[in-house]
């Protein structure tokens, strides 16, 4: 048995730290997984909306005012309600989904922006309240009255929450959503948006990719796209360029053990859109995260320069999915952002692997000497 490639990195850290890191990571994955789990099952609806927008709006491929009327109610009402329903379902099954959906429609009607963050909050909360009510009433209701009580507890609670959502929570959520959108715009204006890559790329390789994309960037992007027809936020995590560059660097300059699987991984990552496949390569050589960050940042820089964006979240993050949701006239910007990200992460990754070789040989020699001494 050879030692795992990252054995040196692991033994460098104290064990207690490792356990704590594992625990924090699991908690973050769990929380992020819940956010993503409210959006991911509904991606088909998001894609339908993206395609409707790309086709029928005045700047689209087949401008058609009648059919374009589908776009706004879909993003304003249908998609948040689906997210709220999925959030409710996670907490309390089908009844949770129903009450979550009803609570979310209150929010959606009470605001002018797509209320995804609000739906992620209100959907599960409504379901939790209903679950508590069901538990409290459970044993006291006679079987003959069960259906009556179940239907009306759900209906009354949902109605009340819809009113509260419309009058109180909706305006608050609208403020937060606008604030987040403005925050991103501020980062764009100050030309510091590429720094986001320093958060996004490390989070991705810790398997928080869905949480970052569907839990955070997607909802911000949806609000932007509803207003401007496309959003850079959709591209920030899903750009397959950084991962492609990392895999190419591993293929050519990586440790011998990585090379045989790299070509298959490239196809699955770039065409299949399963980014997870490159994370282990980065985890095995943690310094490669710098290559991913550089690639991600370069991709964002190019997107800002060319005003690139997509009309919906490309999911999965395959180049094919990215092109499918690229708006008319946006191909050059999007393809440049992907290509520049790939070239940058490849260049940085190759340098890191090449430079690393010298240290590694020294370390191996040291280890051999130590082994011989034992």
């Amino acid at each position: 048995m050879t030692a795992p490639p990252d054995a040196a990195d692991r033994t460098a850290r104290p064990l207690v730290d490792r356990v704590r890191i594992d625990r924090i990571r699991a908690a973050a994955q769990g929380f992020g997984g819940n956010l993503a789990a409210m959006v991911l099952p509904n991606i088909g609806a998001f894609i339908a909306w993206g395609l409707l927008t790309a086709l029928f709006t005045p700047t689209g491929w087949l401008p058609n005012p009648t059919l374009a009327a589908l776009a706004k109610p879909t993003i304003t009402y249908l998609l948040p309600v689906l997210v709220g329903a999925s959030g409710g379902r996670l907490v309390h099954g089908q009844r949770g989904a129903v009450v979550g959906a009803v609570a979310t429609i209150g929010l959606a009607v009470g605001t002018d922006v797509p209320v995804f963050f609000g739906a992620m909050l209100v959907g599960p909360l409504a379901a939790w309240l209903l679950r508590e009510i069901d538990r409290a009433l459970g044993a006291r209701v006679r079987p003959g009255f069960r259906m009556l009580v179940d239907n009306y507890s759900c209906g009354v609670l949902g109605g009340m929450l819809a009113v509260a959502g419309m009058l109180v929570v909706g305006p608050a959520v609208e403020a937060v959503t606008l604030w987040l959108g403005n925050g991103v715009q501020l980062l764009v204006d100050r030309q510091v948006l590429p720094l986001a890559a320093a958060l996004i790329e490390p989070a991705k390789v810790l398997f928080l990719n869905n949480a970052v994309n569907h839990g955070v960037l997607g909802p911000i992007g949806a609000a932007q796209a509803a207003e401007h027809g496309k959003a850079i936020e959709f591209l920030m995590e899903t750009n397959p360029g950084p991962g492609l560059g990392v895999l190419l660097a591993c293929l050519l300059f990586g440790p011998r053990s990585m090379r045989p699987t790299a070509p298959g991984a490239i196809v699955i990552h770039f065409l299949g859109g399963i980014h997870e496949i490159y994370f282990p390569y980065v985890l095995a050589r943690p310094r490669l995260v710098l290559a991913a960050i550089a690639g991600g940042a370069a991709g964002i820089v190019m997107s800002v320069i060319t005003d690139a964006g997509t009309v919906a979240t490309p999911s999965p993050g395959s180049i094919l999915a990215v092109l499918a949701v690229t708006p008319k006239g946006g191909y050059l910007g999007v393809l440049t952002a992907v290509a520049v990200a790939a070239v940058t992460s490849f260049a940085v990754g190759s340098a890191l692997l090449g430079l690393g070789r010298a240290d590694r040989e020294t370390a191996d020699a040291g280890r051999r000497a130590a082994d011989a001494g034992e």
Partner: protein
Amino acid sequence: MRGSEDVPTIDGAKVRKVVVACDAGMGSSVLVASQLAAALARYSVSVRHASVTEIPADADVVLCQEALVVRTSRVVPDKPVLGFRLFLGDPLFARLEQAIRNGVPLAG
């Protein structure tokens, strides 16, 4: 953290259902499950994919990427959870097949 005594274990020969888990249960788990399904079909072992939060109750063994092992073990504390590093050609896949063929205990 679990002590080493109470790590869930199963005899490889008794494994009938393997579940591969990932965050969304749609992408990487499908990839691994389809590779394993082909290899394990001859032992009449079924392989399914699932999200970490929706692992079927009748799973005998759960596989996931090692970065997700801690989270997965919390969701299914009673099942052996085996972590692999690579999505393609990880040594764990061969070890699992061997354990199922030869009835070696699997713990994790």
